[in-house]
């Protein structure tokens, strides 16, 4: 109501320079100060767990056990890093994670981009059926028991495919991608058609090069999902040499892994204390790759997600 009536005068008022809004009042300045403090607190809360883990990774087990480590390392040492770096099981798991992430992301990207391109063509007959087929799975899924039965029946237990294949199409990513393809200017594709390029040629040579932002976003989303996944491995893998690093870490935390006691033997202290700093180092080494790519792709993913919100 308020806004409706004033709509007509707004342009006049702006022209007359009546823009000394409440933004400049004392009340608003007080709000700005409070707001800044609140946001700084939010940042501190977000960062604190990271800082503690970093501090613990450099601290001596004794200091952690005594409850002295918060934001700053106590009893600074690199022994834990050395112990973890010499642990073959850890690097084996790390290598598995890299392999699963790389293969999984590749397969997922191929399936997602090709499917998204096909269903982004408004004239495609049966398009709504294909979209419906995908969207329905967002709201209804089989559940873990039938999934487990299926993976077992396909003979994929204790193979890396059990970890890689089931996650290969995320419908959310698919819809974001489809929306992006729909928004590409049609003229380019039409020009390519006249030049005699088929759909697949257009897709590879025109559409994909134009879609770098969304492709970068999707590569990030898929690779983070594969990198972070532990549950598929937990369910389907029994052999330690196939474990990804997240499952290795989970077992470390659960104290179920023999590696924790190996670590304790190395440093010659109690299992509980040593595993706290070994956990910290393992966590950091697991987070680091994500932190490394994060700044580069950040500008892409925000636009990617927003795109999904517009059309998804």
């Amino acid at each position, binding site marked *: 109501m308020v806004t409706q009536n004033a709509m007509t*005068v707004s342009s006049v008022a702006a022209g007359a320079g009546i823009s000394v809004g409440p933004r400049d009042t004392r009340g608003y300045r007080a709000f700005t100060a409070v707001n800044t403090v609140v946001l700084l607190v939010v940042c501190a809360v977000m960062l604190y767990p990271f800082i503690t883990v970093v501090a613990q990774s450099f601290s001596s087990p004794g200091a952690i056990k005594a409850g002295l480590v918060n934001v700053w390392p106590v009893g600074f040492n690199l022994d834990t890093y050395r112990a973890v770096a010499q642990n073959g099981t850890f690097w084996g798991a790390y290598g598995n994670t890299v392999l699963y992430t790389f293969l999984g992301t590749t397969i997922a990207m191929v399936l997602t981009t090709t*499917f998204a391109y096909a269903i982004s063509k408004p004239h495609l007959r049966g398009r709504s059926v294909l979209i419906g087929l995908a969207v329905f799975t967002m709201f209804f899924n089989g559940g873990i028991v039938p999934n487990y039965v299926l993976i077992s029946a396909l003979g994929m237990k204790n193979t890396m495919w059990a970890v890689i294949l089931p996650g290969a199409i995320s419908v959310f990513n698919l819809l974001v991608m489809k929306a992006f393809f729909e928004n590409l200017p049609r003229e380019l594709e039409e020009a390519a058609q006249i030049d005699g390029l088929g759909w697949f040629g257009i897709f590879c040579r025109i559409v994909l090069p134009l879609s770098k932002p969304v492709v970068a976003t999707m590569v990030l989303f898929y690779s983070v999902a594969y990198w972070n996944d532990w549950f598929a491995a937990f369910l389907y893998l029994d052999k330690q040499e196939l474990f990804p690093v997240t499952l290795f870490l989970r077992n470390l935390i659960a104290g179920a892994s023999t590696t924790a006691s190996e670590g304790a033997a190395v440093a010659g202290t109690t299992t509980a204390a040593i595993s706290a700093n070994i956990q910290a180092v393992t966590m950091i080494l697991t987070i680091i790759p994500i932190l490394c790519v994060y700044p580069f792709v950040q500008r892409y993913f925000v636009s990617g997600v927003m795109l999904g919100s517009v059309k998804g």
Partner: protein
Amino acid sequence: MVAETVGRRQVVGRRPWNTGPPRGHGTKLPWRVVWRRDGVLYLMAVLPVLFLLIFRYGPMLGNVIAFRRFRPGGSIFGEEWVGLLYVDMFINDPTFWHVFGNTVIIGALTLIVGFPLPIVLALLLNEVRKKAFKRAVQSISYLPHFLSVVIVAGMVMQLLSLQGTVNQITEALGGEAVPYLQRPEWFRAIYVGSEVWQTLGWGTILYLAALTTVDASLYEAARIDGANRWRQTWHVTLPGIRPTMITLLILNIGTFLNVGFEKVLLLYSPLTYATGDVISTYLYRVGLVSNNLSYAAAIGLFQACIGLVMVLSANLISRRMTGASLW
């Protein structure tokens, strides 16, 4: 290869396809023509569709084992019909209703706390004039979203351990150290708190995007009418982002019962089953640890159906009341 030949033949043979208004709207083209025009598009969709059929629809059909006796190593669709045996079983299982209650409570708490906070943070961020500061806060608050749930659980355990920061503060204030993760009364708070920590920043993205689309002249108009900052937020900003809020609310309601299963599995222990055990962890233990696969499938199917009903009804209500709908 295929694409090239099809394309060229098309160009040589008849008019280039898809120039001008697409034919086939209104008049039905024969499939043969459609195939010649779009065959490659269908071929591109074959693998993804196969994937969906096997890995998404396969397990959906696999749910028939909820009504059939399942023998490990036998058919994935079970051996013989047993009717509603397993449904009867869980309806008469007090543990099921207990974990059902836990799930509803944790889901409701997560929704009540976790849904409004990103909106508040987005509004606060929207008031920040210094671009660099705003961007820094955003980058930092998105970060937890990218962590594995294993790492989040590890961090929670370290912070709440007897030597952890929380207990250090408690002791500094003269309290006694509490083994939080072994106390059922703390489980919900821990779960919801860590959930908020991980999702708060990421949740703001869509709202911030929606905020940029609010018409600036509306603010000016409100200001001229004497609306202060608070009233502008209430009467202009919030209505402006209402469609986003409703969409996200519907999605959140749909996933209400899928309480972060993996995190619960990592954080709970027999000591905290009283409040922490949820439907999915219960069916995981019953099905995959104790091997009652049919029984667990029945519970899972029930859960999935409730989820579907909830999302459909939330969408229906929203369409009736506000006109906003997911599809």
